[in-house]
């Protein structure tokens, strides 16, 4: 059924030199504020919008860290604190990491990497982006009604009895974001499946596209379950149903199953595309082929598959029977294997290379260093027996910030430094990038490392007031968060200034081999005058220049 609507690759090849007449030569600045169907415009719309939400979510985090500088609740009202912790998590997940990595990099890069002129369904693609705009407005608007206060997990009964209007707006926002995610995923699967240039075999496809394929499958399977769970919750709040009301025969634990069936895979939605970015950035700047292409490609699929069966590890202390606690301990531990394979492969890629330390590579290596730690602490959390102690403590907060900040956000930065020249046609300033990296690296470790100790020692998460014995470590975290806040300044200055004033970027400034570097920087509207033909693999570094030297 999709085939009919799709131009096949062969047809695209047949009409290479006739650009459709309704397109201008080049997009103007105001085109970025319209319902534009160019995948590159949509990619940049996603990236810029999500970055703004990153700043908003970051300010919420700073306010929370200010509150936690002292044991008493003295800076924010307890309700506002809970609203910040709920929406900080929500924004960072649903309005920053997911849209930036999947919507932003996915849209901008996938067609360019596989030699397509656009995504399979360009209008659907634009729709998917514009659906996230009301989602963001609902989240921001919910603060006029106190903001949702029951955590990004929104467990009933708390979510049913607290701030009903704001909670309902929150649910609608997540359902919209989920809809966007489903539309986007369909689009990626069809695009990658059908629109590769004919000369590109599956095993010549850049690993970022493999990662996007795995991500999309995962999103497609899991998102509807979240939407269902949240819709039931919305009914409980507003229409007097009692799906999750134990007094009337409902089951609160059922909500947790529905929620985590999506939301654990959501962790992989946030990290698989980042793994894809890593697999592109590291070989280019190490000047070596990626080590173990197949292992990396298949481990993405393995993570996607196993990742669907680990959700109960968020519920080891909830109403879960012994067999679940045991089964999900084992399945959770198994995820460590394909993840480990990726990390080993990246280190092996660097091994023996000639590593160029530009900002993109620094962030990639920083990610590796921190992800090792976050992965190891994740394994400890996977064991039900130990999780009884640390579940819902700062140990968990520390762990997932190593994975999501040290992992995902570092990966997004690596990607931004790496593809900024392609996206804007300008180079970023390297010294400013290095300052940005150093501040971010120090800030991340200062903020999130002490949290592990706090949790082990007895500090629960999601509290505005705590036992005074934890003050010193909390102040260290707060200090780190200030460093993180400051670290954004050189990046913002760099990104904004360079967009108009930076040195012109060449088509292929890093001397990379994937197809996006064969077109202009920034790419022309239909990506190429004549579609490229694959003459070598995406990671063919270190080989004697044969017929491939005509690239630049």
């Amino acid at each position: 059924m999709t085939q009919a609507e799709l131009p096949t690759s062969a047809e695209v090849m047949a009409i290479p030199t006739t650009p459709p007449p309704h397109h201008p030569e080049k997009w103007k600045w105001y085109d970025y504020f319209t319902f534009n169907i160019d995948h590159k415009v949509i990619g940049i719309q996603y990236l810029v919008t999500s970055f703004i939400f990153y700043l908003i979510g970051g300010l919420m985090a700073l306010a929370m860290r200010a509150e936690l500088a002292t044991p008493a609740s003295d800076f924010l009202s307890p309700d506002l604190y809970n609203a910040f912790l709920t929406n900080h998590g929500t924004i960072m997940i649903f309005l920053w990491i997911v849209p930036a990595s999947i919507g932003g990099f996915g849209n901008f890069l996938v067609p360019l990497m596989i030699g397509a002129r656009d995504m399979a369904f360009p209008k659907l693609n634009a729709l998917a982006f514009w659906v996230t705009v009301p989602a963001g407005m609902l989240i921001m608007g919910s603060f006029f009604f106190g903001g949702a206060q029951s955590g990004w997990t929104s467990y009933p009964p708390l979510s049913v009895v607290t701030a009903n209007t704001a909670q309902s707006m929150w649910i609608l926002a997540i359902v919209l974001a989920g809809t966007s995610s489903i539309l986007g995923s369909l689009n990626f699967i069809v695009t990658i499946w059908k629109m590769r240039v004919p000369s590109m075999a599956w095993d010549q496809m850049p690993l970022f596209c493999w990662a996007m394929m795995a991500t999309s499958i995962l999103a497609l399977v899991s998102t509807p379950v979240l939407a269902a769970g949240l819709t039931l919750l919305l009914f409980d709040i507003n229409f007097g149903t009692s799906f999750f009301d134990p007094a009337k025969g409902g089951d609160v634990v059922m909500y947790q199953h529905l929620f985590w069936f999506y939301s654990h895979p959501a962790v992989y939605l946030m990290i698989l595309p980042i793994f894809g970015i890593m697999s592109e950035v590291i070989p280019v700047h190490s000047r070596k082929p990626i080590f173990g292409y197949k292992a990396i490609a298949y481990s993405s699929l393995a993570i996607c598959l196993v990742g669907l069966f680990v959700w109960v590890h968020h519920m080891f202390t909830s109403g879960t029977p012994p067999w679940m606690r045991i089964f999900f301990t084992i399945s959770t531990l198994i995820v460590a294997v394909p993840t480990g394979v990726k990390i080993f492969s990246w280190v092996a890629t660097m091994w023996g290379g000639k590593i160029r330390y530009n900002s993109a590579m620094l962030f990639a290596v920083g990610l590796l260093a921190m992800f090792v730690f976050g992965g190891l602490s994740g394994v400890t959390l996977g064991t039900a027996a130990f999780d009884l102690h640390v579940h819902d403590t700062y140990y968990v907060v520390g762990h997932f910030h190593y994975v999501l900040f040290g992992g995902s956000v570092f990966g997004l930065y690596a990607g931004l430094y790496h593809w900024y020249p392609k996206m804007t046609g300008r180079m970023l300033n390297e010294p400013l990038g290095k300052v940005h990296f150093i501040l971010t690296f120090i800030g991340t470790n200062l903020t999130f490392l002490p949290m592990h100790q706090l949790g082990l020692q007895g500090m629960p998460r999601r509290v505005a007031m705590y036992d005074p014995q934890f003050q010193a470590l909390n102040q260290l975290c707060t200090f780190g968060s200030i460093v993180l806040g400051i670290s954004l300044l050189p990046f913002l200055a760099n990104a904004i200034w360079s967009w108009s004033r930076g040195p012109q970027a060449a088509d292929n400034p890093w001397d990379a081999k994937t197809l996006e570097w064969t077109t202009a920087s920034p790419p022309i509207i239909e990506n190429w005058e004549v579609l490229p033909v694959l003459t070598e693999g995406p990671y063919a570094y270190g080989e004697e220049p044969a017929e491939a030297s005509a690239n630049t």
Partner: protein
Amino acid sequence: MKQIPAPLWTLTIGVAVTLLSLWYGQNHGLMPEQASEQAVLIDELFDSMVVMGTALFLVMEGAILYCMIQFRQRKGDETDGPAIEGNLPLEAFWTAIPTILVIGLGLYSFQVFQEIGGITPGHVAHDHGTMIAQADDTPLPGGLSESGKGPLIAENSVFGLGAPLENEDTAADLQVNVTGMQYAWIFTYPEGNIIDGELHVPIGADVQLNISAKDVIHSFWVPQFRLKQDAIPGKKTALRFIANKEGNYPVVCAELCGGYHGSMRTQVIVHSPEDYQAWHDKRVAQTPAVETIAKAPADLSAEEYLSPYSQEMGVNRDLIANLSLK
């Protein structure tokens, strides 16, 4: 430098990493005091994970650092590195090693989970102090009830921790009913009709907590016991532990339960057997006053219910009034 052969380097680094990891596993000092027998088992599991984790961390970070320094681009060198695309034996090796490690860890953590009673939660009936074994609804490992036809999650299941398998049918020495409510813990002792805002237990006794929640989900956690179990409206949950060190330890609510979640704290007091008996007798003597209020707590508002104990719990009357308005 050049004279030392590579295998010798590898060996030296291996020994150093092993020793350092073993040392750190015993001396990390990250955990608070150990005050229950279950904590001993869980800490042993944690310590061994710290040993394993430290070793892997050192090896991985070492490899990353080595790469960064050894394989940096040298001045003026614009050439590529060698075109190595993989190495199957090496890849098989680094897939196999973590697989073996996580399987080993999985088995070990299963063992610990069994010993702290994770396999047979609430084997002894939950119903407010009456100790009737649930003969017809005995959960087995694997979740099937003994009849073999039962649902995976039986209707009346108790979740949490019970006794270890070898003495699964042994009744606990002491049962306490724990109720979580915004924002306090209420402990009732069915024997003697004691109600308190703090948990008192004798050292060495096998204590079973029957946990429930009045309003929203809470989570009962004693960091020094290393044990946690959610209190869930509409579900029965339980914890079973043996305190092995006298002292006062915090009881913390670990599940977000509203604005004052962070202040939902009280303490557990582990007494010597004699002190516990003295406390128990003293409280039983006060029972008449308590009984009138304790008769039908469900019919009372939280304020009325709590106020007799507010003094003792160090909670101000006005705060309770405020909280119960929410």
